[in-house]
């Protein structure tokens, strides 16, 4: 490996400028700062085609992260979304390709399996009183295992009629970006305007106060985890469409990216706060970083280091910003 490839990204001065931008403007400031840094460092970054690529790269993480936002706002955690995404995609492909079911029915079954997986996690948390971390860690393993069992361990071709989901509209607009936008709008609407959404904030803010104020906390938790599973299913289908096959080993570790996106977006892991727009920004920060570092030919090994640093930095800055605002 040459010294050129091992070069650490960004300079000290740029790092400081990035830190200040986040400190002043929150996650959006960080995203803008990162985009400016990448544009300065790479001539190829700021062109339309590449930015759409960033959108495609962000789409799966962002859709997963919208679902996880619901859970984190309610002071829970969902570690199972990567596995559930793979399971749902596998179910869709198996139903359509192996069993010959109509594609629309296969998709519906895939979504139902995602929601059901969430429902089971939710039941373990709400009625079984398991810590969310444990319940969804179990589902992470069960979901991945079932995907492997159903597929026999090898990829299943995705129905060609769903290939469009991974393609473009009018030859330039990537469909995953459209799905991302639609799911983001739905997530924002759920959080801001629905009973379940407002209950998420109440449960995450103070579960006991929510219960004493007549929120049906346990039933809401079922809905919250089911929504997370449903969003994971959508993400899994988009991912499989892009890869043209459902792979049981797809999306391994994506739950961590999703959680990182939510937290970078300004949500607190202790619950009670979070926004769909913040989560989108968090997912975009991760995608811009990866795309930019690829353009700069930074090794994948260093990319992991940089990603970790950005996660820590973003959340640290956000904490400082809030503390100074108090």
């Amino acid at each position, binding site marked *: 490996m040459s010294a050129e490839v091992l070069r650490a990204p960004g300079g000290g001065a740029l790092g400081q400028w990035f830190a200040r931008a986040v400190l002043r403007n929150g996650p959006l400031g960080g995203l803008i700062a990162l985009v400016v840094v990448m544009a300065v460092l790479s001539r190829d970054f700021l062109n339309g085609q590449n930015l759409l690529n960033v959108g495609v790269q962000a789409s799966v993480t962002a859709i997963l992260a919208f679902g996880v936002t619901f859970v984190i706002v309610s002071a829970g955690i969902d570690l199972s979304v990567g596995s559930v995404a793979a399971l749902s995609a596998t179910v869709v492909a198996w139903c359509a390709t192996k069993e010959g079911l109509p594609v629309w029915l296969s998709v519906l079954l895939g979504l139902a399996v995602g929601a059901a997986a969430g429902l089971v996690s939710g039941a373990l948390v709400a009625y079984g009183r398991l810590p969310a971390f444990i319940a969804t860690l179990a589902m992470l393993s069960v979901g991945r295992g079932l995907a492997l069992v159903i597929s026999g361990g090898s990829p299943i071709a995705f129905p060609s009629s769903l290939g469009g989901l991974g393609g473009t509209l009018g030859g330039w607009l990537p469909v995953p970006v459209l799905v991302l936008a639609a799911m983001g709008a739905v997530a924002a609407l759920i959080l801001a305007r629905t009973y379940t959404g407002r209950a998420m904030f109440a449960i995450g*803010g103070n579960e006991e106060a*929510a219960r*004493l104020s007549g929120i049906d906390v346990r039933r809401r938790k079922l809905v919250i985890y089911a929504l997370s599973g449903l969003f994971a299913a959508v993400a899994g289908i988009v991912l499989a469409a892009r890869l043209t096959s459902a792979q049981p080993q797809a999306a391994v570790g994506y739950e961590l990216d999703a959680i990182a996106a939510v937290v970078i977006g300004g949500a607190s892991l202790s619950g009670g706060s979070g926004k769909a727009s913040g989560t989108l920004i968090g997912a975009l920060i991760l995608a811009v970083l990866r795309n930019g570092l690829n353009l700069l030919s930074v090794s994948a090994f260093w990319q992991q280091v940089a990603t970790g640093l950005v996660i820590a930095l973003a959340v640290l800055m956000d904490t400082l910003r809030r503390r100074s605002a108090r």
Partner: protein
Amino acid sequence: MTGVNDDVPEGRELLRVEGVTKSFPGVRALDGVSLRLRAGEVHVLLGENGAGKSTLIKMLAGVHRPDAGRILVAGREVAVRSAQDAQRLGIATIHQEFNLVPGLTVAENIFLGRLPRTALGLVDKRTMRARAAELLRRVGLNVSPATPVAELGIARLQMVEIAKALSLGARVLIMDEPTAVLTSEEVSTLFGIVRELRDSGVGIVFITHHLEEIAALGDRVTVLRDGRSVAEVPAGTDEDELIRLMVGRDIAEQYPRERSAAPGAPLLRVRGLTREPAFRDVAFDVRAGEVVGLAGLVGAGRTEVARALFGVDRYDAGTVEAGGQPLARGDVRAAMRAGLGLVPEDRKGQGLLLDASLGDNLTLARLERDTRGGFVDRRGQRREAAAVAERLKVRMSGLEQSARTLSGGNQQKIVIGKWLLAGARLLILDEPTRGIDVGAKVEIYRLVNELTAAGHAVLMISSDLPEVLGMSDRVLVMAQGRIAGELAGERATQDAVMELALRPVNDGNTYEVSAMEGSDVG
């Protein structure tokens, strides 16, 4: 060991604060405050929440530094820049939240950070325990120094804190509302110890909201109002005068209960409510327009009964009827639909979403009602929240402000407002004015009057006897999980309540509800 110096001449000045001023962004917390503490006196620091008491004692504890003014210890000007400085100067503070490590023993806590060592550098447990035992004897605490602190109740934790202060050789002991969390027996024990410390020459700064404690324990009183020290008066000053000094205006009546002519139909009917061992055979009615007090010692089962009838906790036997309909057990939502609302004892832990906006807090209990087809009418909610906040005169910058940043009294108004918005007709107020200053208390009492005049009813649990007697139309006294008796009118006196609360309950002496019209259960 470094104990209190016993040969301090009576009355010598230990501590003097002169013209101290302290500003925080946007607010002048202290403005020329003075305080003089003599050896061997209990000096009460009195003031509403926000008057500057906390800032002043934090200054003496080395947390804040004054912008102007002087602090003198034993006549010498000093700078208290840190907790270590305060310790060195013999100033110890017992905060409302204790600084004890639950996993360590009493002795380890007392000597935390300065454990006696043996020649080998190991902790000298024998010396430590012997010295701790001596300190515990001085504060009258009868526990082994080897007891883990986690096993002690709040009153004993306080004694451990006092022992720790003594072990530091404190000559000035600052106690921030030490009685707020104690039962009346514990309070009298505490008073005994404070008097002993005073007689041994310690100067004590004592903060309390309970006016009756001033005459009982204090020697002198310094009254703070809006960051200024407005008066230094003898502790014998009468309560009305103290209140006037504290709030800067006369409060004609501290408990302005306006009794309605005749109570209406029963809104709540409880019969034979039992959950061993917390409560047993509890029966009572609450009628429209009534304030029913629920008095008794801490642990008598009052809060447990309130939670059970509101559906928070289950019960084994008995019935609860609201508006003529029986309520399902353990179903908060059913209780809410029947018009009940619970303002819990632990405002911050159970009443509020501290980091959420006031608007979200106010509309929390009517979230379901404002939902049509899955969507919440947020605009309607904001309108309703604004209306109730104005009606309750909540002092806030706007509905977007977070609940955490409000004073205790305004926080309580938010919790009450939440139930008004939810359409509650019977409010259960559990210790509604705990930790709330006099001015805000009176506002809450007025609100209770307003509600009962409009046909609502209130079940008020309170450990504050003057309050529960002053505000209730009838007082039910609980003892050991039972209703020991009911007092109304002239029979409702502090002595009568205490007698019922302390009387041992025997099985042949069950309380009869026959006094209530139309009751069907004895």
